[in-house]
C-alpha cells in the first residue's frame, strides 16, 4: 500500500478518535460545572478540560481568561484550534476523501454524512440543549464510523493502520485526562478528600465513559487508586493504557506478518505493553508517582507514533 495512503488512514483514525475524546471531555466538564459550589468547590472545570484535550496553551494564546463559553467554543468549534471537534471531523473527512477507495462505502458515508451535518453547527450563541445535541451527534458519528470499520473492512493493512491511529490517539487521551487530575488521585494511604473529590472522580470516569464499568469491575465505592488502576492497567477496560497497547502490539504484529518483516515499531509497542502488563498500581504510586509515570508514558506514546511513521508512513 502507498505510504501516503497508510499515513492518511492512520491520521483518519486519530482524528475521529480525537473528536470523540474531546466531546466526552466537554460533556464531563459541563456536568461537573453544574455541581453546586458548596459541593464541588469554586474551581474552574474548563482549564483542566482544555489541558486534558492538550490545547490549553493554544487557548491562552487567543484568550486572557478561561471561561466556559470561550472554552467550549475553542474545544468544539474554533477554526483556530487544530484539534477542535469541527476541525478534527473536517480533517478526518478530507482524509477519508483522499483515500476514498481504501474505505468501504459504509465508512465513507458515516464520516461524510457526519461532516455534512455537523459543519452547520456554529459555536457562537449556542444554548446548552443544542450543544448537547451536537456532542451526542459527534459521539454517534464516531461510533458509526468505528462500527462500520469493524463490520465492513477487510482485515488487511488499511484496517490495521486505521486501528493503529485509533489506539495511539486513545492512549494519549486517557493518559492526559488522568494526568490533569492526578492530584485528586492519591495513593491508598493518603488523606481521602470530601465531596469535591467524589465529583472529580466521577468526572474522570465520565470523560472516558467508564463510570458503570468501574462498578462492574471493582464492586466497590469509588476509590482513587482503583480509578487509576482501571484506566492505566486494567486490560478489560477498552480505554485503558494497557488495553490500547495490547491492540497496538496486535495490529503491528499483523503488519509484520503480512509484510514478512518487523522493525522498531513492533519492538517498542511490545516493550510498553509488557511493562503495563507487569506493573501494579501501588508500585506506580510509590515509585515515581502517577504524574511522572503519565508524563513518561505520553512521551513514549508519541515516540511510538514517530517510529510507526518512519517505518511505514513516509
Amino acid at each position, binding site marked *: *500500500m*502507498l*505510504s*501516503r495512503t*497508510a499515513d492518511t488512514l492512520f491520521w483518519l483514525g486519530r482524528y475521529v478518535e480525537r473528536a470523540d475524546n474531546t466531546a466526552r471531555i466537554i460533556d464531563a466538564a459541563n456536568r461537573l460545572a453544574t455541581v453546586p459550589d458548596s459541593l464541588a468547590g469554586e474551581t474552574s472545570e474548563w482549564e483542566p478540560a482544555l489541558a486534558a484535550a492538550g490545547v490549553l496553551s493554544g487557548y491562552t494564546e487567543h484568550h486572557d481568561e478561561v471561561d466556559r463559553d470561550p472554552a467550549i467554543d475553542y474545544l468544539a468549534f474554533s477554526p483556530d484550534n487544530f484539534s477542535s471537534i469541527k476541525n478534527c471531523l473536517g480533517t478526518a473527512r*478530507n482524509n477519508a*476523501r*483522499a483515500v*476514498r*477507495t481504501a474505505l468501504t*462505502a459504509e465508512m*465513507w*458515508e458515516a464520516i*461524510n454524512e457526519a461532516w455534512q451535518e455537523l459543519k452547520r453547527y456554529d459555536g457562537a450563541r449556542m444554548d446548552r440543549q443544542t450543544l448537547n445535541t451536537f456532542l451526542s451527534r459527534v459521539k454517534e458519528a464516531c461510533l458509526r464510523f468505528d462500527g462500520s470499520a469493524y463490520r465492513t473492512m477487510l482485515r488487511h*493493512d488499511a484496517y490495521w*493502520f486505521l486501528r493503529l491511529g485509533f489506539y495511539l490517539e486513545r492512549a494519549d487521551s486517557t493518559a492526559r485526562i488522568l494526568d490533569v487530575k492526578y492530584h485528586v488521585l492519591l495513593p491508598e494511604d493518603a488523606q481521602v478528600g470530601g465531596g469535591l473529590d467524589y465529583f472529580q472522580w466521577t468526572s474522570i470516569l465520565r470523560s472516558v465513559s467508564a463510570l458503570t464499568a468501574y462498578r462492574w469491575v471493582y464492586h466497590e465505592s469509588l476509590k482513587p487508586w482503583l480509578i487509576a488502576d482501571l484506566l492505566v492497567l486494567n486490560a478489560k477496560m477498552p480505554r485503558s493504557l494497557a488495553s490500547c497497547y495490547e491492540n497496538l502490539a496486535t495490529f503491528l504484529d499483523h*503488519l509484520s506478518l503480512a*509484510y514478512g518483516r518487523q522493525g522498531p515499531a513492533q519492538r517498542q509497542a511490545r516493550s510498553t505493553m509488557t511493562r503495563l502488563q507487569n506493573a501494579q498500581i501501588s508500585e506506580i504510586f510509590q515509585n515515581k508517582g502517577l504524574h511522572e509515570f503519565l508524563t513518561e508514558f505520553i512521551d513514549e506514546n508519541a515516540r511510538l507514533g514517530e517510529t510507526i511513521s518512519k517505518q*511505514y*508512513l*513516509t
Partner: protein
Amino acid sequence: MNSKGIMPAPFDEMSSADGNSRPGYELIKRWLDSETPESLGHRRLEAELLFRRIGITFAVYGDEEAEERIIPFDIVPRVLTKTEWRKLATGLEQRVTALNMFLADIYGTGEILKAGIIPSDLVYRNPYFRPEMMGLKLPHDIYVQIAGIDLVRTDAEDFYVLEDNARTPSGVSYMLENREVMMRVFPDLFAEYRIDPVETYPEELLATLTSVAPNSAPGEPAVALLTPGPLNSAYYEHSFLADKLGIDLVEGSDLLVRDNVVFMRTTEGLKRVDVLYRRLDDDFLDPLTFLPTSVLGVPGLMNAYRAGNITLANAVGTGVADDKAVYSYMPEIVRFYLGAEPILKNVPTWRCREKDACAHVLDNLHDLVVKEVAGSGGYGMLIGPAADKATRDIFAEKIKADPDNFIAQPTLALSTCPTVVDAGIAPRHVDLRPFVLYGADKVRIVPGGLTRVALKEGSLVVNSSQGGGTKDTWVLDA
C-alpha cells in the same frame, strides 16, 4: 433568445418534424408518454440520491461553496442505433490513428510540415508543443492512448468533430456511473431494450495501458494513476478509475526517480512503476524539466521517460494536437497520413492568424462562435448570436490584439434530445464524447460515451462548469 429567429429548427434526435419518433426512440417515447411530471420528478430524485450516495462530485474552480456540487444528471437516455455507432466508431479510429501519426511525425522528422501542409510555425511555436519530446522514440509510436473526441450532430447523417481532447480527457466516470444509476432506477427499460454494455471500459483501459509498457518493464507491467490530488476538479474520477482498474492512485510525492527508474513509496518499501496514466498537465510533471515551482510532479520523471523506463499516457506534448488551430487542419492530416477521406467531419474553421479569415470573422461576429486556440471548458469563448453588441465589441478588440490566439466557426444547429425540465419534457442541445483507447495491440472504443446536455433552454454550452448536465448514452444492440 434571438437565435431562434436566425437558426433553423435544430434536429431533434427523438422526434422528426412530423412528430413521429425516429428509429431507436420508439420505446423511450412510449415510456415518456406514460410518465407524468410528478412521476418523472420522483425518478429524478431517486437518481440524484443514488449519485449523492455514490459520491460523484464535481469541483468547479473558484467556487468554494460548490466544491462538491453534483453534476446534474438527466434521466432520459440518449439513443444511438448500431448503424450510427458503427460509422462513428470507424471514424473515431481513423481520427485517433491520424492524430498519433501526426504527433510521431512532428516530434520526429516533421514530414507534414516539410510538405507545406501545415505551417511549421503553428506547430513549433505552439504553446503545447514540447521541444523536450523531439527525437524521443515512444513505444509503438503511440502518443495518445486515451482520446475523448467531442462530437455534435446536426442532422440524421452528419456528425461533426468539435474538439479532439488529446491531453487528459475526463468524463469517463460519468459514462460509467450514469449507466449504473440508470440500471438501478429503470430496470424495466433495460429489460425491454438490448443495450451494449459500457462496463468493460476499466478492463479495456488497463489492457491498453499495459500494452504500451516500456520494453524495460520487468514481468507484468506495474500501472499507476497520477493525480494532482484531492483539490483537482476531476479527483473523483481519478480515484474512481484507479479503484476500478485496481491500480494505485498516486500523487507526485508518492513517486521518486532513482537512476532513471520510477518508483512509488509503499509501506513495504519502493516499488517500480512502468506505466503512468497521468492526469496531471505537462507543465507540472517534472520540476527539473518544466515548471520549476511545481510541487505536484516528480523530479527527474522526464529523464526516466527519455531513458525509456516509463510510459506516460498520454505522452507529453500531445496538446499540440488538440489545439484549435491545428484542429482546423485535421481533414488534411487524415488525408496526408492515411490517404483516405475523413469519415468524421470537421466544423469549418476560420483561423484568425490568416488575414482574410480574420477580417471575415470580425465582419461576421454576430453569426459565429469564436474560441481561444488553447482554451477549454467553454471559457474564453464568444457565441456571437447570443451575445449583445457590447460583448461582441470587447471580443473584437481581443481578436485584433492577438489574432493568432483565436479561431471562429459557424454556429452549428446542435441536435436536441428530450430532457426532463421543471415543466415536464423538453428538447435540449447535446453533444457526445466517446472515449477512444489506442493500444499497441488494438484500438478499443466502448460503445457509448458521455452525452452532455445544455440544461438551459436554447443554450449551446454543454460544459459542466457552465451549467451543463449529462445523460446516459445507449447504443442499441439491434
